């Protein structure tokens, strides 16, 4: 399943600082709900991870030790990153929520992982262990983009779960 172009389109025009602010807010909200999220990373906590949705014009770079997330317009990513994972947004979000068996996706071509495999494996295990539920975790979110993200999260969830190509494979 591809992210709907119609929804992705405005991201080309929205100013980057606005997107980054909104993303930062979501990121901090999730961390507030799951303060231990990055504990499982151990020695990999200080590394930098890039999440590259193949159907969005954006790249997200997370630095767990600094509790920071940065957004750039592709192909630019704040270099250097230690590990990156690229794939359709819904798979990346399923990974985030532990809704699919990343083990299968992770090393298949559905999600492509480059760089430090061990760090990314630690990241996926940390995410899987965290009980993240985006619609729930973001439901109380305030701000102008809140309804947008809430709706998108729900929509993606619904599509991912009913999609013919099961995310298991």
């Amino acid at each position, binding site marked *: 399943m591809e992210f709907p172009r119609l929804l992705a389109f405005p991201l080309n025009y929205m100013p980057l600082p606005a997107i980054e602010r909104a993303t930062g807010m979501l990121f901090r909200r999730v961390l507030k709900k799951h303060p231990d999220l990055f504990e499982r990373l151990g020695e990999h906590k200080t590394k930098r991870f890039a999440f590259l949705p193949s159907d969005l014009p954006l790249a997200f770079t997370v630095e767990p030790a600094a509790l920071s997330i940065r957004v750039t317009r592709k192909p630019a990513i704040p270099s250097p990153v230690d590990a990156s994972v690229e794939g359709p947004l819904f798979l990346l979000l399923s990974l985030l929520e*532990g809704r699919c068996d990343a083990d299968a996706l992770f090393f298949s071509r559905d999600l492509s*992982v480059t760089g430090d495999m061990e760090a990314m494996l*630690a990241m996926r295990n940390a995410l899987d262990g965290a009980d993240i539920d985006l619609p729930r975790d973001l439901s109380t979110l305030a701000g102008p983009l809140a309804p947008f993200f809430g709706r998108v999260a729900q929509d993606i969830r619904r599509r991912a779960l009913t999609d013919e190509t099961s995310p298991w494979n």
Partner: protein
Amino acid sequence: MELICPAGTPAAFREAVDAGANAVYCGFRDETNARNFPGLNFSRDELREAIAYARRHGTQTFVALNTFMRAGDEEIWYRAAADAVALKADALILADFGLMAHVAEHYPQQRLHVSVQASASNVDAINFLVDAFHAKRVVLPRTLTIADIARIAPQIRCEIEVFVFGGLCVMAEGRCSLSSYATGKSPNMNGVCSPASHVRYRQEGKELVSELGDYTINRFPAGEAAGYPTLCKGRFDIADSPAYAFEDPVSLDVMSEIDALSAAGVSALKIEGRQRGKAYVAEVVSTLKKALSASPAQRTALLTRLRGLSEGQKTTSGAYEKRWR
């Protein structure tokens, strides 16, 4: 028969309990267990909470301490055993004789299970562990046929647990140094096999090459699903013909044989996969739980659906069937 389910994280643990596991097995977040993967496993506090959660739901907790103690650092394993006992684990799953002796001596009331890593593959081997360490249960290696199990069961003085679903070791477990030969890290010593730290993928023309350490483990033409470079599931050249030398990238599934396993004297069925995510655990455990009490026809339907979760979607009954050899 009991269903013994894997958990790599507290989230997966709760899923397994909720899905109806009779027991959940897990390990500490260190080298004392054979799934010492980055980001996986339990702190002492997490295990305490998990055991409490399991107990509220009538589920048992088994703690795997199934690597071999590093000479001079035995205290790490002894402390793990002491903590697991103090947290009231229902059983410890052990592989190292030295550790078994320590547990049998210091915690004689503690239920001791023999890990598959101990490689107890016959009657005399199992009775040795029962006599020497008072083992209450043995997890049989994946080297036996169902007929072998049926022959062994009445001659031993402990319960039998067998793997029925998930990853499959081709080699006798606990006796394999292939991983450390290529990477320096082994299941026995470090709790890892074909570790991610040594995995590289490299695009070469249209082929994706997977490497472990310095060695090419597989080449995938465009369009073919790429697998993780687990050493014994790689494609190699023998006398100039490329093939999966040891085993195809398949996983184990003998759920269709559970009646035969029950008749053979098996007490518990084990699902592999502490490294798999909570979604996998939830799905597999709930389906297998249903399958256990389903009619044969319903069971087939349930299992067919589950097959989609398997590595490469191909499964094998492995050594349980004689022709596999």
